């Protein structure tokens, strides 16, 4: 009896603390609970692997440690980017899109030394701030049409002005697909903030964004851990030999569990929420394999060395690229249509 009351006391203290914090920044009280949960998860992994390192310094531990340090940085950046002001959120995600797009183009190695084709590249880069401006502007149709439809004819338009045809197929296809992969999909994450608010949804859109990002990332973590412990059968030996069927099941189960725990963050029923967890997990694996196949094709291991232990920005975004789109339209369909 005594223990229960102590727990409620701690809970009430936290609640008061979170209410104060929620008045300071953008996060709602349920989101702060979830963030606290994420903080505890990273803290747990930090103690777990540092403790393991004291007992038995196994091969690959150094990389895991580096990854955990990166996780702390990512958690801090998450709070900085999403917690202060929506415009900072837009700017932050715009920067991530830009870095990922630049990484993608640099690795594909398609810059054309011809002056005209460089202008087409420039137009593709200009599309990034415009896309994020459209997110802020809040005209939903413009925002979803600008890259898929607008850039479809704007990119060739620029080349045609200069009368260029050399390497046009390669340039248009790579720029267009790269924009869809890194800019269109990523811009759907901050776009969640600018949707009309839902009555009775206490966590707000901040909660929805946290749900999406946390589950995709935890899916990766569970996949990694389950794959390392039980992994035997390769899921896709041709593309990514490290990914195992056992690992994917682990990721799937982990995502389901996380979706169940964090169901209070999204304005859906528990059943819908579980389905959403499954959906994000599958799309995450699919996105991961897509980026892996690109790297396989270009015969590289990482897109760049931007994040220590993780590789490039696109290496970390891989599972989010498809999951963000799937999540956004799934939610949109269930809530707004």
């Amino acid at each position, binding site marked *: 009896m005594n223990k229960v009351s102590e727990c409620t006391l701690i809970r009430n203290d936290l609640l008061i603390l979170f209410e104060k914090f929620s008045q300071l920044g953008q996060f709602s009280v349920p989101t702060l609970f979830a963030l606290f949960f994420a903080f505890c998860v990273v803290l747990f992994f930090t103690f777990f692997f540092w403790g393991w390192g004291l007992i038995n310094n196994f091969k690959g531990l150094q990389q895991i440690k580096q990854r955990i340090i990166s996780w702390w940085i990512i958690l801090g950046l998450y709070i900085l980017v999403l917690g202060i002001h929506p415009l900072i959120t837009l700017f932050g995600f715009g*920067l991530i899109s*830009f870095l990922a797009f*630049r*990484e993608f*183009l*640099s*690795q594909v190695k398609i*810059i054309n*030394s011809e*002056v005209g084709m*460089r*202008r087409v*590249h*420039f137009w593709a*880069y200009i599309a990034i701030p415009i896309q994020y401006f459209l997110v802020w502007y809040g005209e939903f149709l413009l925002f979803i049409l600008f890259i898929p439809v607008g850039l479809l004819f704007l990119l060739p338009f620029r080349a045609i002005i200069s009368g260029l045809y050399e390497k046009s197929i390669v340039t248009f296809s790579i720029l267009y697909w790269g924009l869809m992969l890194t800019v269109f999909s990523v811009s759907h994450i901050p776009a969640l903030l600018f949707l009309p608010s839902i009555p009775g949804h206490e966590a707000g859109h901040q909660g929805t964004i946290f749900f999406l990002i946390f589950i995709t990332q935890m899916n990766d973590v569970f996949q990694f851990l389950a794959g390392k412990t039980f992994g035997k059968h390769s899921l896709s030996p041709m593309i990514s030999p490290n990914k195992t069927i056992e690992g994917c099941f682990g990721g799937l189960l982990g995502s389901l569990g996380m979706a169940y725990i964090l169901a209070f963050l999204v304005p859906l029923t528990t059943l819908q929420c579980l389905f959403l967890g499954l959906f994000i997990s599958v799309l995450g694996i699919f996105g991961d394999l897509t980026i892996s196949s690109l790297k396989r094709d270009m*015969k*590289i291991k990482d897109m*760049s*060395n931007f994040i220590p232990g993780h590789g490039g920005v696109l290496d970390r975004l891989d599972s989010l690229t498809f999951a963000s789109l799937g999540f956004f339209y799934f939610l949109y369909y269930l809530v707004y249509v």
Partner: protein
Amino acid sequence: MIFLRQVWFYVLYRVIMRWFLKVFVGVEFDRDLPSISSDEAYIVIANHNSHMDTMVILCSLPFSMQGRVYPVAAADYFAKSKIKKFLYSLFVNAVYVERSPKRNHVHEFIAIMAKKIDSGSCLLIYPEGSRGEPGVLGEFKSGAARVLLNSRHLNYVPVYLHETWKPLPKGDGLLIPYLSRVLVGPMKEIDKSKDHRDIALSMREDVLSLKPLDN
């Protein structure tokens, strides 16, 4: 005054330009160029494909070397007018040489440069002469080697600039973000007994050995 110059170039390159190049253009910086005491000096040798090259190298200088490294620029282009010369001196810290001087002037220029090095200033020389064919390391001219042979300092630092022509190539003023890298080699000494042509050849090899394997 010297300290003010140092602070000015530090703020310009380490505080502002380095972040711009890193975040916007996508230059991956290597370690800094070596920091040396004021009675020593070295020549920085690099390949040259883009106007960005000098910026990138000046951004790789530690605080103690800021304002002490002088990029050697062609007078016929960078000192065409007085305003241009003033601006390049103010923002890039350049010194000027005639690109194709008369025969008896060559020795004069080398003597001037050697004097500069003897007084503890470092030089940045692109031995290829100008921004050559993109991605190809051209023949090295022996000017840098001759300057070193005529001075009491013997050190040079090879630097390889990988794909810096892609964000800003010759013949186009539009900067387009694209990942490029700078690779700084260890400080080396020339063999004083050798001919200046042989030294130029070995310098070229040093720069080329820094080139990353294409993956």
